[in-house]
């Protein structure tokens, strides 16, 4: 991640309200944000050009967030993935942890809360690059 380039964030959630709420909020914070409602579209975009940070919902039709997390980590292990979910359970939290999730956030959360997590993910990415 170059210091003068905005951090690229991909948001995937089939609930349009989440994307509509998060995208402008994060763009105001200086991120380059692209939002998707369907995982195949998001995955195609990611394969074409990986993002630094992915924020994905868990429960979606077709490819769910857990599969998306797996594909993202396989393609770009340095990408940090934040899972958000409306129907959290201990099992899904643990599974995403074992698949290398950076953090797990249950809805409801305030945009500031995800911003804090994204900042921590950025710090980790920059730290990894400097090492």
């Amino acid at each position, binding site marked *: 991640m170059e210091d003068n380039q905005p951090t690229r964030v991909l948001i995937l959630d089939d609930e349009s309200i989440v994307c509509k709420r998060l995208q402008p909020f994060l763009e105001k914070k200086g991120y380059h944000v692209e939002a998707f409602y369907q995982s195949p579209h998001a995955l195609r975009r990611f394969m074409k050009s990986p993002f630094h940070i992915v924020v994905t919902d868990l429960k979606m039709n077709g490819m769910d967030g857990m599969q998306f997390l797996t594909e993202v980590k396989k393609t770009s292990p340095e990408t940090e993935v934040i899972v958000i979910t*409306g*129907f*959290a359970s*201990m099992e899904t*939290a643990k599974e995403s942890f074992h698949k290398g999730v950076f953090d797990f*956030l*249950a809805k*409801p*959360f*305030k945009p500031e809360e995800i911003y804090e997590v994204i900042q921590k993910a950025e710090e980790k990415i920059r730290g990894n690059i400097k090492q």
Partner: protein
Amino acid sequence: MKILVEVGRQNKMESVILQVAELAANTWANVTFLGLCPSPEAVNDTAENLDASRSIFLSGISDDVSLYAAHKAPYKLIKLENGTWDQQYEGSARKDLRFRIRYGNPGKAVVTEAGHANADIVVKGSRSHQHEPDETLKKVVSQAPCSVLIIREETKPQMIVCCLDQDTVSQSSMELINQLVSLYRAELEIVGITGAAGLSSEVDRRMASILSYYTDRNIKAWVRLVDAASLKTFVTQTEKDQLLALWMGRESLLDKIFSRQRIAGLAANAESSILILR
């Protein structure tokens, strides 16, 4: 998600804390426990009570992902300003588990801390059939800046009954219900409140969208209509194994029928747990 748990002065309400632990483990929530201190001289007793609550909470978390710092080391009490103390434990973990003590008016202390912690939900334990609705509960229900969950001790809801009489339902309140459906593996009854002219078309549409939202996600949910005239009876007869969720917006008939002060009275007497949604 951020949860604020009020720990009463007299007891630790073990079953309530264990339900909070399960919710926190599911959602990887940041959790603050608030101890209410009757006088500055009682701060050490309050700290001991919080320490015991912490042990109960951690006993309900299977910690193979180091979710919360679980050191058994003694705590330190750090005096802050305005009758507030931080109770600090060593160690760091993935999520925050904080302990705060406040001295002063208990209701005001909970409301202030809910704002300070930016909480999404305040959790408060309550015994059924209290003689008087407690003053803390009144204040919290009427003034908390977020949703409030009043858990009836030793109950675990099997059904969540959501009362709706308006179409302005916040996204965060919908999401909170989702998490509670997951936590309790509960079924969901969406109750539409009809006036003299029947169910308004806006509420009808909103109910339909909420119903499909849940059925699309394989949650067992159904709708039911209740006449406004019998609403009070309906609410007070909610059973022990149910959780009564009330959307109380400014446009809400519920807000008119059950002022927030009266909800505190209802919470003191009802058999069920109650969720006030904001």
